[in-house]
């Protein structure tokens, strides 16, 4: 057997950490600080400003806290947790999908999950169900749409690129669910249900309560943890199906893990907050500009950045005017021009 070469050539001293590693850990630390700052800032800001001392009083002595305590524990805190989880979930799944589908233009709803979840919610509102049922229907609709995409793509992909097939079928399934949403809106009562559906689809955190967070948190964690665990392998996946397999990756297993985890994240966020667009597309780009494309750093960076971003945008949504601006409108309003800005100043094609 051939002596495997190279071993002898290894120098005994560890290679110096490159400037790149230092730079990305620095950026990650800065993002962590930004995250903490936006978290505490969001606790204080709002139509009902809460000073740190009121906070302390409410947290240590919730029974006698009065109005500030209610604002804090029943309204603001759940909303902040929801912002944090949904911002993280959409950004992390967007980043993971961009690697899996080898395309920086991909967003988390590429396989139809948002359209499915939207249809579930719209149908729930149409049938006059209560909020819990609407949320379950929405979550289920998201899962169903992705399941449908995968099932329809399976026979086709045997004769071609499985990843490309998934994208194309996902667009088709998304389009069908979108037209079904239009159908539901068309038959809905124009005085009561149509506005409710329309408003819900715009995406908003206004109605988030502690129960929502209790439902959302375990699902979000179940989606985030596997993606964070396998994140380094997403690098290899972005070199394409065959190359990744030749490098020793079981691509099928990894692909289903990513799809399942991302679907849980996106479906649960739509079920709680409606359609909050552009976060899953813009945040991974921005994170990639800051820390580079290596998923080892990119995924935690996307998580921190996505959380901070949604916290800040939601601060604007709830404090800028007496009536709330739906969050989805703001994320699109901020996201689309910002994306254009990233495109124009990116030096390396699709950063």
């Amino acid at each position, binding site marked *: *057997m051939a002596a495997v070469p190279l071993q002898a050539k290894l120098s005994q001293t560890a290679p110096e950490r490159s400037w790149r590693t230092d730079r990305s850990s620095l950026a990650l630390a800065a993002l962590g600080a930004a995250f903490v700052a936006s978290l505490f800032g969001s606790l204080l800001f709002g139509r009902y400003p809460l000073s740190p001392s009121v906070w302390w009083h409410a947290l240590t002595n919730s029974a006698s806290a009065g109005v500030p305590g209610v604002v804090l524990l029943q309204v603001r805190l759940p909303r902040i947790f929801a912002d944090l989880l949904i911002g993280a979930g959409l950004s992390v799944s967007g980043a993971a999908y961009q690697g899996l589908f080898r395309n920086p233009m991909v967003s988390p709803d590429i396989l139809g999950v948002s359209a499915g979840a939207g249809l579930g919610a719209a149908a729930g509102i149409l049938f006059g169900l209560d909020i819990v049922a609407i949320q379950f229907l929405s979550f289920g609709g998201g899962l169903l749409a992705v399941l449908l995409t995968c099932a329809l793509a399976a026979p086709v992909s045997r004769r071609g690129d499985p990843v490309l097939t998934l994208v194309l079928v996902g667009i088709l399934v998304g389009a069908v669910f979108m037209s079904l949403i239009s159908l539901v809106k068309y038959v809905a009562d124009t005085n009561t249900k149509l506005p409710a559906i329309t408003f819900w689809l715009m995406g908003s955190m206004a109605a988030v309560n502690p129960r929502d967070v209790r439902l959302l948190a375990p699902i979000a964690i179940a989606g985030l943890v596997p993606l964070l665990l396998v994140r380094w392998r997403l690098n290899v996946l972005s070199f394409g199906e065959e190359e990744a397999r030749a490098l020793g990756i079981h691509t099928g297993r990894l692909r289903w893990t990513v799809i399942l985890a991302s679907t849980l994240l996106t479906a649960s966020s739509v079920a709680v907050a409606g359609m909050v667009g552009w976060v899953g597309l813009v945040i991974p780009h921005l994170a990639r500009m800051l820390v580079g494309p290596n998923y080892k750093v990119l995924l935690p960076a996307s998580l921190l950045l996505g959380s901070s971003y949604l916290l800040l945008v939601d601060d604007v949504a709830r404090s800028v005017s007496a009536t709330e601006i739906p969050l989805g409108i703001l994320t699109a309003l901020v996201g689309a021009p910002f994306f254009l800005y990233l495109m124009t100043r990116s030096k*390396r094609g699709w950063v």
Partner: protein
Amino acid sequence: MNLEVRNIACGYAQRTVVRNISFGLDSGEVFSLLGANGSGKTTLFKAILGLLRPSEGSVLVDGEDIASWSRRQVARTFAYVPQAHTPPFPFSVRDVVLMARAAHLGIVESPGRNDRMIADASLETLGIAHLADAHYTEISGGERQLVLIARALAQRSHFLMMDEPTSNLDFGNQVRVLRHIKELAARGFGLLTTTHVPDHAFLCASRVAVLKDGRLLASGAPDDVLTEGSLGAAYGVALRIRLLEGGMRVCVPEMN
């Protein structure tokens, strides 16, 4: 180590692309596969790498059929060097080379210090250590090809499978890659390469095979196999083989 391809037939759903292919390769050898576009070279590569399941025959490593091997096991034995490409994201050269370590790391692991040392040593072997921090998407095509070879070395496999390693390279880079191929064989790797240039096979292959319409036309030592007859038949053009002083052979086409 020894690789034996035994009577392989392989293809896609309804179409068998290659059939009745048999040859062997030992460590320290360079085996060059020649053949016209569409003659089945890439399909044969995919069959050996386990990316396509052969419909007949088997691939044996030291006598053991690899059909039941895991992806990880295959990757630890065969490293694939694709044609230079551009990934969608601007990874650093070191990050690209480190991806070779996937076959040695657990599913939730990422490369550590030892892996980085192996990657840097591989870059050094190819003489491109200075590119470690460059963006893979911004270096030249020739440099990218060297990075992919370095990545294959970092995979610590015994056989290197190079798919047209000299295509799209300028003349100087072609020669540089050929030199690396010879040197890697001298270090004990077994190399399986495809090429479109008979001269490259004359320059560095210890054994060659000519593929035509999915079948082996001939295989053996370059001087015996790469004749005016076999190459003319494989490519469908008239050509001449000339002996230079020093014993080297060159292949030149006839332009009538």
